[in-house]
C-alpha cells in the first residue's frame, strides 16, 4: 500500500511538472527567440513575464472576466501589449547597443546589453512596485482550484488542475504557432537571416534593425503570454520576474541557446525537476534547488548553449 502511495506521489509530481513545465517551456521560447534571433542576453525577460501577469490581471478584473477562459483571452491581450512595448523599448533603447552597430566590437556588445537590460529590469520591477503595490495578486477563476481526476486502476488517482491543464494546451499551441511563424513564413525567415549574419542580411536588403525590433517584441510578447497563463493559478508581485528569469535561463541553457525547440524542452525539464524536488525538499530549498540546477547546467554543459565557447587563436 505504501509503495502505491509513493508511486502516486511520484506520478502526481510528474503531472504537475508537465503542467508547469509547459508554461516554462513557452516563456523559454520567448527568451530563446530574443537570443536566437538577435544575439541579445535579455535580463529584463522576467519583467516582461511580470507585466504579462499584471496586464492579464487588470484586463480580467476590469472586464469582470474571471471566468474559466478569461485568463486565456487576457494572456493573448497581454502578449499584444507587451509586444508593442517590446517594439518601443527596442527602438528607443536596445537598438543603440545591438544589431549591426555592435558587429565586430568587443564581445559583440554583450556587456552593454547585459547592463542595459539589467537597468530596464530594475526600472520595470520597481516601477511596477510603485504602480501596483507589493500585495501579491492572482486571477481567480472557477478553474483555479478545481481539477480533473484521472483514475489509474482502483488505487491511484491523479489530479489535473484545470487552470494549469488549460495553460498547458495554450502554451503548446502558442509555441507551435511561433515555431511555424519563424520557420515557415517569409518574415520569419528574414528574422533568422538577420540573426545569422547581420552584415550579410543588410547586403541582401533586409532591414536588420527592423528585424531585430520584431524579434525583440515577439520574444517579449511570447513570454508575456506565458505570464498571463500563470497568473490564473500563481500569486505574483512586482519582483516575481527575478525568480522566473533564472528558470528561463536554466531552461534555455539546458535546451541549447538559439534552438527554439530546445528551449521548450529545456523549460519542460526544469518544471519536472522543480516538481520532483518537492517530494524530498523543504519549501525554501525548492527555490534554492532551481538555482543549484541552473549552476550545475551552466558549469558542466555550457558549450551547446551560446554556441561558440572556444576562441580561435
Amino acid at each position, binding site marked *: 500500500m505504501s509503495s502505491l502511495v509513493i508511486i502516486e506521489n511520484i506520478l502526481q509530481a510528474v503531472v504537475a511538472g508537465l503542467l508547469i513545465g509547459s508554461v516554462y517551456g513557452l516563456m523559454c521560447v520567448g527568451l530563446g527567440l530574443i537570443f536566437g534571433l538577435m544575439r541579445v*542576453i535579455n535580463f529584463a525577460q522576467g519583467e516582461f513575464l511580470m507585466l504579462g501577469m499584471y496586464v492579464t490581471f487588470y484586463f480580467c478584473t476590469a472586464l469582470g472576466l474571471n471566468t474559466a477562459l478569461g485568463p486565456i483571452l487576457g494572456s493573448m491581450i497581454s502578449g499584444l501589449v507587451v509586444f508593442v512595448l517590446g517594439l518601443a523599448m527596442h527602438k528607443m533603447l536596445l537598438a543603440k547597443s545591438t544589431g549591426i552597430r555592435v558587429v565586430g566590437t568587443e564581445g559583440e556588445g554583450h556587456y552593454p546589453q547585459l547592463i542595459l537590460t539589467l*537597468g530596464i529590469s530594475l526600472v*520595470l*520591477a520597481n*516601477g511596477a*512596485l510603485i504602480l501596483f503595490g507589493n500585495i501579491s495578486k492572482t486571477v481567480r477563476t472557477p478553474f483555479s482550484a478545481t481539477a480533473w481526476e484521472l483514475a489509474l486502476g482502483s488505487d491511484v488517482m491523479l489530479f489535473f488542475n484545470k487552470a494549469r491543464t488549460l495553460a498547458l494546451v495554450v502554451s503548446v499551441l502558442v509555441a507551435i504557432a511561433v515555431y511555424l511563424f519563424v520557420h515557415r513564413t517569409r518574415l520569419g525567415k528574414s528574422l533568422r537571416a538577420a540573426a545569422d549574419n547581420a552584415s550579410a542580411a543588410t547586403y541582401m536588403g533586409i532591414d536588420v534593425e527592423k528585424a531585430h525590433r520584431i524579434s525583440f517584441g515577439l520574444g517579449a510578447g511570447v513570454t508575456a503570454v506565458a505570464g498571463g497563463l500563470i497568473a490564473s493559478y500563481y500569486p505574483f508581485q512586482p519582483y516575481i520576474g527575478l525568480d522566473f528569469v533564472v528558470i528561463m535561463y536554466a531552461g534555455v541553457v539546458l535546451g541549447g541557446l538559439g534552438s527554439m525547440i530546445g528551449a521548450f524542452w529545456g523549460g519542460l525539464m526544469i518544471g519536472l525537476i522543480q516538481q520532483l524536488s518537492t517530494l524530498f525538499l523543504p519549501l525554501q530549498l525548492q527555490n*534554492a534547488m532551481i538555482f543549484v540546477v541552473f549552476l550545475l547546467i551552466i558549469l558542466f554543459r555550457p558549450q551547446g548553449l551560446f554556441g561558440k565557447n572556444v576562441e580561435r587563436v
Partner: protein
Amino acid sequence: MKLDQQPSQVKAILLLSVAYLAAAYLINDKYYQLILTVVPIWAMMGIAWNIFSGYSGLVSFGHAAFFGIGAYTVALAMIQWQLSPWLGIPLGTLAGVVAAVLVGYPTFRLRGVYFSLAMLAYPLTLLYVFEWLGYQEVAIPMKRENGPWYMQFQEQYSYIVVGILFLAISIYVASRIHSSRFGLSLTAIKQNEAAAEGAGIDSALWKLKAIMVSGAVAAAAGGYYAVVLIVVTPPSVFGMLASAQAMIMALFGGVATLWGPVLGALVLIPLSEILHAELGNEIHGIHGVVFGVAIIAMILYAPEGIFPRIRDAIVGRKGGADAGDSRRIIHVPPVDEAVTRPAVSQDIALKVSHLSRSFGGLKAVSDVSFDVYRGEVLGIIGPNGAGKTTLFNLLNGFISANEGSVQFQGKELVGLKPNQVCREGVGRTFQVVRPFPRLSVMQNVVVGAFVSQPDNDELAVSQAREALERVGMLEHANVVAGSLNSLELRLMELARVLAGKPKLLLMDETLAGLGAEEVETMLAVIRRLANEGQTIVIIEHTMQAMVRIADRFVVLDHGSVLAVGKPMEVTKDPLVIEAYLGKKWMDHAKH
C-alpha cells in the same frame, strides 16, 4: 618610466576623507547623517566590484554573495559568541575571501555572458538557504555597556568616521592594484586574454587573486552594513539589488578607474535616498528606478562613466602629439655587418615528435616530427590549410595534442598552459595581431616582460625599453596601441615577446598583410635577431621572403611533413612544387 605611473594616492585619500568628515560634521540632520553613513558602504561595494569585474572584464552579477556573507558573519558572531564587530568584520572579510575562492574556482571555466549568468545564481541560492536556516531576520543585540567596543555609538557621526576608515583602507587597496602589475595584468587579460596568456600572464591566477581581494572588500562592506543597519535579512543583503548596486556605482562613476566607484556612490546614494524621502516613505522601489535609469543613461550616453569625463574636462585629453600622427617613421637599428652571425649550433633546442591533433574527422596535424637547432631560423611553410597555425597552437598550449610530444630543452611542453609554455622560454606572435588596444605601446610590451621579471618592475620596464629599441619602436612607446598601423602592431607584438627574453621565438605569418617596403623592414628586424643568436621558428606561406631568411624549411601539407631541408633543396622538391602549384604545373616548373 616606472610601472607606477600615478603619484601616491595616500595624500588624496587622506585629504578627501578629512573633507568628507568635515562636511558631515556640519550636517546636523539625523536623516542626512544616516545617508552619509551608507555612502561609504556602497562606495566600498563599488570598489569591490571594480577590482574584479572592472579590471578583468568578467561582469559579476553576484557580488551580493560576498556582501551577505560578511553581513551575516558579523551579525551571527555577535549573537552566538558575543564577538565584537571590530573582530567580526575581519572575520567576515576572511569568510568573503574563502567564498570568493569557492565561487571563483569553478566559475572561471565560463566565459563572457555565461560567467555573468552563473554569478547571478550564487547569492540567490544563498538567499533561500539562509531563509531555510531560519535567519529571516537577524538583529544585532544592543549593548548598554561598553558600546564603542561593540561598535555601537551614541553619535551617528562616529559611524561615519568608522565607515570612512574602512572606505579609506579599501581605496588604498584598490590604488595599489590600480597602479601595479596586478592591475596591468588584469587589464591585459580583459583586452585580449589569449594574448595575455601567450605573453606569460597566468590569467587564472590573476583572476583568482582579483576575486579574492574583491570578495574581501565586499564582505567588509557587508559587515559594516550589518553594524549600521542593525537588522540583516536575506533579501536585503543577498538580493539582486545589492549586486546591482555594486555594479552600478562602478559603472556610473567609471569602470577600471580608482575614484569612479567612490564618485558613483557619492552621487547616486544621496540622490536615491533623498528622492525616497521626498516622495514619501510609503513609495517603495524608488531606489531601484533611480539606479535603473542611471545605468541605462550611462550605457547610452557615457559608457565610460562620469569620472573619466570629469577628469578629461579638467586635465584635458591626453594622447600627446604622437597619437594622431599616421606617418610614424620606424628606425630599425641597422644590422652590424662587421659582426658575423654565430654558427647554428648542433644542440637541439626543440624536439617535436609524432605530434597529432584532429578535429572530428579532420586530421589538422598528423604525425609531425622535426627538430629545431639552437640559433637557427627555421621556416615552416605550406599552402593555406596545411596545419601551420594549428601546429603553433599545439606547440604553445592553446590547443592540446591528441598524441606526440614536444621537448623543449629536455622539458615536455605538451599539457602545459600557454602561460606556462611562455615561462619555459617559448614566446610567440599571432597570425592576427593581438594587441591590448587601449594600453600604450610601452604597457603592451611591459606585460610581456613580467614573465622574465616576476618581482622586479624596474627591470621589467628596462627590458621592455630594450625590446622596443631592438624593433625600432622606442620612439613611439607612449602611443596607444589601438592607433598603430599593421607593421607597427606586428613590431610591437614582436617586442612584447622579446621583452620576456624567450629562448625560442615562434612567429606566425609575421609578413601577412604587409606592403613590399614593410616586408623589408620586418625582414631586417628578423635578420638582426638571428644575428644576435636568437632561435626562431617562423610560419609563412610566401616562399620568396622565406628563402632569404630561413636556414632550413619544414614543408607541411594536409597536416603532415612533406619535406625538410635547405631552402634551395626543398624548393626543387617535386612533391613540394606539387603541393604548392598542383600537378598540372609540375612540368612547367621543371623547365
